[in-house]
């Protein structure tokens, strides 16, 4: 199998139950941040523990990136527009992510999304660099309504 590496260590894990982003939760105030961070920005102290975040969440807002971003953007050539969204996860955190869907007509605020890990680009040594994305989830869920309101 071809060699693979994540775009950055510690952002995500591929578990038996599916891919998961790795964040942290403050043991004092309960606030969750992504990526994992020893420091709680609300308590201003090193009070966090590492947690796995849910693989599903609700689309809080979205846009389509229609031009190639300036450096240090990587990504497959030729450039193709991609979705960008904020996904609200049940742990109480909204995460900014690329979206697999790039047609705005197929996206709506509040819809359920699920995480996937995909090849983002091939690096100079021929290694596949993996990153995370969200895509519209197969089945609707109740979570969708809480964000739309």
């Amino acid at each position, binding site marked *: 199998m071809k060699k693979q590496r994540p775009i950055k260590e510690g952002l995500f894990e591929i578990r038996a139950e599916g891919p998961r982003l790795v964040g942290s939760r403050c043991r004092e105030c309960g606030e969750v941040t992504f990526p994992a961070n020893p420091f709680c920005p609300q308590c201003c102290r090193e009070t966090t523990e590492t947690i796995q975040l849910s693989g599903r969440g609700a689309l809080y807002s979205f*846009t389509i990136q229609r031009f190639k971003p300036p450096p240090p953007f990587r990504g497959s050539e030729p450039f193709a527009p991609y979705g960008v969204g904020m996904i609200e996860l049940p742990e109480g*955190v909204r995460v900014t992510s*690329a979206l697999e869907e790039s047609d705005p007509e197929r996206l709506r605020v509040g819809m359920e999304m699920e995480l996937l890990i995909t090849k983002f680009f091939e690096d100079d040594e021929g290694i596949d660099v993996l990153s995370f994305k969200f895509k519209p989830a197969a089945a609707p869920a109740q979570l969708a309504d809480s964000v739309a309101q």
Partner: protein
Amino acid sequence: MREVYVIGVGLHPFGRFGEKDVIEIGREAVVAALADAGIAWRKIEAAYCGTVFAGPMAGNKALARVGLTGLPIMNLENACASGGSALRLAYQDVASGFRDVALAFGFEKMPRGFIAGNPNDWFAAMGLAVNPQYFALNARWHMANYGVTEDHLVKVSVKNHRNGALNPFAMYRKVMSYDEIASSPMVNDPLRLLMLCAPNEGGAAVILASEEIARQCATKLIRLAAVVLKSPLYGTAEVPYISVSARVEAPSVTRTAAEEAYAAAGVGPGDLDLVELQDTDSAAEIIYSEELGLCERGDGARLLDEGATEINGRIPINASGGLLSKGEPLGASALGQVAEIVWQLRGEAGARQVGDARVGMTHVYGALGNCAVSILQC
């Protein structure tokens, strides 16, 4: 604390100026402000220079061409709030009685195109560090929740370009039709190219002084009643954000900066006669009109629909043309807003003059939520 007055303002036009040296752009703004104040360069006791792209010691380089008087010069970078930060420091000098006359200035010659991300950031490599994405995410959320439509986004840009056509210091100085804006290329849905401001070149300078000095100047007395610089609280979404709390909703930095400025100046939103605010995109003007307290949350689009934000409206917003028409030379932007308010309060704004203007506000918002708000009164 003493009262602080603006005795002189000067601009180098905002736009693109070919091979022109960025240091010369800064020098011209300072010289224009000195001429406006009618004050000798030797009387300036300290200078604060805000710039992001002009390089190390840019302020010293510009002022070396005005004259070597030995004054302390501070160079600072604070993204879109760089000029506002310089103004705050000059204000502190005069308000505290530490100095009687201080200069705040800023200038830029920005790279073309969208601002690049930090080369070490994984999310920039992933294509998630482009500013208009975040403007668009804010815009889409506002549209989904408060009835802002694409029509509103077009109308903000039409208004600001119409105003900017009357401003000799603006970059575009051109009326743009509804159709031209509505059919310009989509950049980050729902934001189109002509709904976004352009990074560009320009310079601005503001000279502050004590009341005693100000009364010796020929220009009308304009008081800098407040200038506030704030960074955000936990629980707010600031450009660019990787993650934001969904449980804690703190007041935005624009809201907290405005509240502090209102309190310091002893005025409220109802006392304002005009506002220059950070319209980096059309939706931002609507959102910030709410966060500055000009209307209730969710009512920004209605304020626009009612015509209240026009030059002859109840609360004119961006009579100068705003960033949409002027462009945004980061270090000069906030001070350019101050110059516009000063001209308006003096009655020197020409074809874009707001009637009977006595109190005005400026607002800039930059990367990671750096925000500067000022209130000027005559």
